[in-house]
């Protein structure tokens, strides 16, 4: 297919100008899902960089006991911003908005998503939310200091600019909903002829489950955040104990969204891993239906476990037990996925390439994240580690080691498709190695600290916590070195990389059938599907023919 430039739709690749407008304007008015994906990528990596720097500052302050560089007030703003930016501006839109936008229509064999204009609108809404979030830093009462969770009643009392930050989160929720609606419709309506639901690539399944969560859960937090604003303005008292309100209710509503949303972050990453493993093992995936359905199971059970964020707030003991047992249920479909991934490597013909290494890094780090989650799920042990550095460590293992690394894996896997260039393999592997070492040096001590009893969101700490804190800070420097090397390697490839073939990794899903980078309308020849998504027989036959 790489040579087929003669299709009726061919006008060059999507990176080149087409249509009436040129240059920047052509990008800002595009409805091409690929360009929108890239626009998301650029905006997100800007915010990611900012939030990583904030994280490094946090670690720097925590390197030694006592206040070294910032005041407690500034420290509180640092972790609030780090959280708000990472969650709302980076990891929630993360894989869906960047990789989902780019890859989903290609994998389905479609020209675009169902609502291209809405797709562009979602990007602008995202930017609007981001601008509001940034404005909240400089306008009014100062940088928000509530933590990304905006817990009442502290968020109602704080003199900082909470209302604007909360409104920004509300607007960003809209963007997320728009993406979700678009993806569900696209998956229902625009699958290539012959592609039944159970012939869809697993990444699409991940996105499908994710999109449902975005559509159903986001409005709940939307209204909750609006009510926080109303409460600050009008004193309606829903969450204010002084008016007969219940701060625990705020936490319920907040986590009804914010727990499912961690699956918005992780499910697409799991989808990415389910793509990468079969490709590099050169064989079909093990337990396709089990992996696909476990995504849906995680999405549904994910709605029923939010209470485990609240085991110490004074919920009824019955509720604590119910939420504890439901929490353990989530572990089961997650386990199914991990075991099926392992089995996919069995009797494969494995090529060790950077995307595979990132995928395996995901499995390792996410397993630590998932297994430490069991400690949080069990009531007796959660009481001790709740709101400590243990939870921070667990969260970063799942979200950064999971969703973040999943995104890096996706970038290394699809970069040649997106830009039509190969990155340097050796450098990519080095970056991966440094990152993995740095990651564990950074976050493993947090697990230890939490068990020792170090609470989270502490600007200062008792001397007995010093050694692990110091090690963790050193880890942050290693991790950032790995990140810089990775990003530099990828960016350099856009200009200086070797041209990439249509299918550099021997992938079997539809995106590999079109050129790299894809043409404006994705496929010169609209594909049809006759087999499951990971059927390597045609590839093998072609390779055998070549070998002769």
């Amino acid at each position, binding site marked *: 297919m790489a040579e087929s430039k003669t299709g009726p739709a061919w006008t060059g690749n999507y990176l080149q100008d087409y249509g009436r407008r040129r240059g920047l304007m052509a990008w800002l008015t595009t409805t091409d899902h690929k360009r929108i994906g890239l626009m998301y990528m650029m905006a997100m990596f800007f915010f990611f960089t900012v939030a990583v720097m904030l994280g490094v500052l946090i670690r720097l302050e925590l390197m030694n006991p006592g206040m070294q560089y910032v005041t407690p007030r500034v420290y509180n703003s640092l972790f609030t911003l780090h959280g708000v930016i990472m969650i709302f501006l980076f990891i929630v839109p993360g894989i869906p908005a960047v990789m989902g936008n780019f890859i989903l229509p290609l994998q389905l064999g479609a020209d675009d998503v169902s609502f291209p204009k809405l797709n562009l609108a979602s990007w602008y809404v995202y930017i609007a939310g981001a601008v509001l979030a940034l404005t909240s830093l400089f306008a009014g009462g100062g940088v928000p200091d509530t933590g990304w969770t905006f817990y009442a009643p502290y968020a109602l009392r704080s003199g900082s600019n909470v209302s604007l930050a909360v409104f920004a989160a509300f607007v960003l929720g809209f963007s997320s909903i728009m993406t979700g609606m678009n993806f569900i419709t696209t998956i229902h309506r625009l699958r290539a002829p012959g592609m039944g639901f159970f012939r869809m690539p697993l990444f699409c399944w991940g996105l499908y489950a994710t999109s449902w969560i975005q559509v159903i859960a986001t409005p709940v937090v939307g209204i909750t955040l609006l009510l926080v604003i109303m409460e600050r303005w009008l004193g309606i008292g829903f969450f204010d104990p002084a008016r007969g309100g219940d701060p625990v209710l705020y936490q319920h509503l907040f986590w009804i969204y914010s727990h499912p949303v961690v699956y918005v972050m992780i499910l697409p990453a799991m989808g990415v891993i389910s793509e990468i493993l079969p490709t590099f093992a050169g064989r079909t995936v093990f337990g396709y239906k089990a992996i696909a359905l476990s995504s849906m199971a995680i999405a549904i059970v994910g709605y029923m476990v939010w209470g485990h964020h609240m085991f110490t707030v004074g919920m009824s003991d019955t509720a604590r037990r119910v939420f504890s047992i439901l929490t353990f249920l989530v572990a089961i479909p997650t386990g199914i996925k991990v075991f099926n991934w392992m089995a996919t490597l069995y009797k494969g013909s494995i090529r060790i390439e950077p995307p595979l290494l990132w995928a395996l890094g995901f499995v390792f780090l996410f397993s630590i994240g998932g297994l430490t989650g069991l400690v949080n799920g069990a009531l007796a042990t959660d009481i001790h580690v709740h709101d400590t550095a243990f939870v921070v460590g667990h969260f970063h293992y799942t979200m950064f080691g999971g969703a973040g690394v999943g995104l890096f894996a996706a970038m290394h896997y699809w970069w040649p498709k997106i830009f039509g260039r190969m990155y340097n393999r050796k450098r990519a592997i080095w970056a991966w190695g440094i990152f993995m070492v740095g990651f564990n040096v950074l976050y493993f001590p947090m697990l230890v600290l939490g068990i020792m009893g170090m609470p989270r969101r502490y600007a200062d700490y008792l001397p007995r916590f010093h050694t692990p804190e110091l090690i963790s800070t050193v880890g942050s420097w290693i991790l950032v070195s790995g990140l810089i090397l990775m990003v530099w390697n990828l960016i350099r490839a856009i200009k200086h990389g070797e041209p990439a073939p249509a299918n550099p990794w021997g992938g079997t899903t539809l995106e590999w059938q079109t050129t790299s980078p894809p043409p404006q309308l994705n496929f010169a020849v609209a594909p049809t599907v006759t087999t499951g998504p990971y059927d390597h027989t045609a*590839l093998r036959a072609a390779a055998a023919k070549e070998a002769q």
Partner: protein
Amino acid sequence: MHAEGGTLGAAAVSPAAAAHHEHRDDIGSKTGMWLFLFTELLLFGGLFIIYAVYRHKYGTEFHEAAHELNKAMGVTNTFVLLTSSLTMVLAVGALQRARVAESLRWLGATFGLACCFLVIKFLEWSAKHHHGIWPGGEHLHAMPPGEGMFFNLYFMMTGLHGIHVLVGMGVMGSIAARIRSGHVSPSRYAALEFTGLYWHLVDLVWIFLLPLFYLTN
């Protein structure tokens, strides 16, 4: 790197792919519309959860406070909205049957009923406002927590609903213009149909608000 013809069996040239004609997927659009309605439902859902929790906590105060609401106005407004839903489906039906003028008349009637709803709502709110029962108002502030909660919930929920009515009226206006200009027509009436779906959702929410606030005593 790989042989032409793709890797997923035979990639056939679909005849439709060659033809560049405008593509319409009404079922797709309708799917999107319903998904949007779900988000609306869940938006109100958050408030319903809050209502349920505080009704559980402040049952007696809720009953006390509900006496202050004007039941007649609430019921009248329910009739108004239900009727507007009827005129809305009739507008869609008329357009489907290619009776454009009739469709516009029904749409106009719906718009009028929506206005009527808002006028009654306004009278009701201003009566409350007059008595200082208003979010942040003196009287409301001084009420026992449970009753205050009832009225704050009342204003938040009917307020959010009222905003939806306003938006619905705006959409109806623009649809009417598009019917006139022929952009929405008997052969492509999806936009009117979706306006209807949205309007019925507004109605649906109100159906629940009626017993929760006006009939609680």
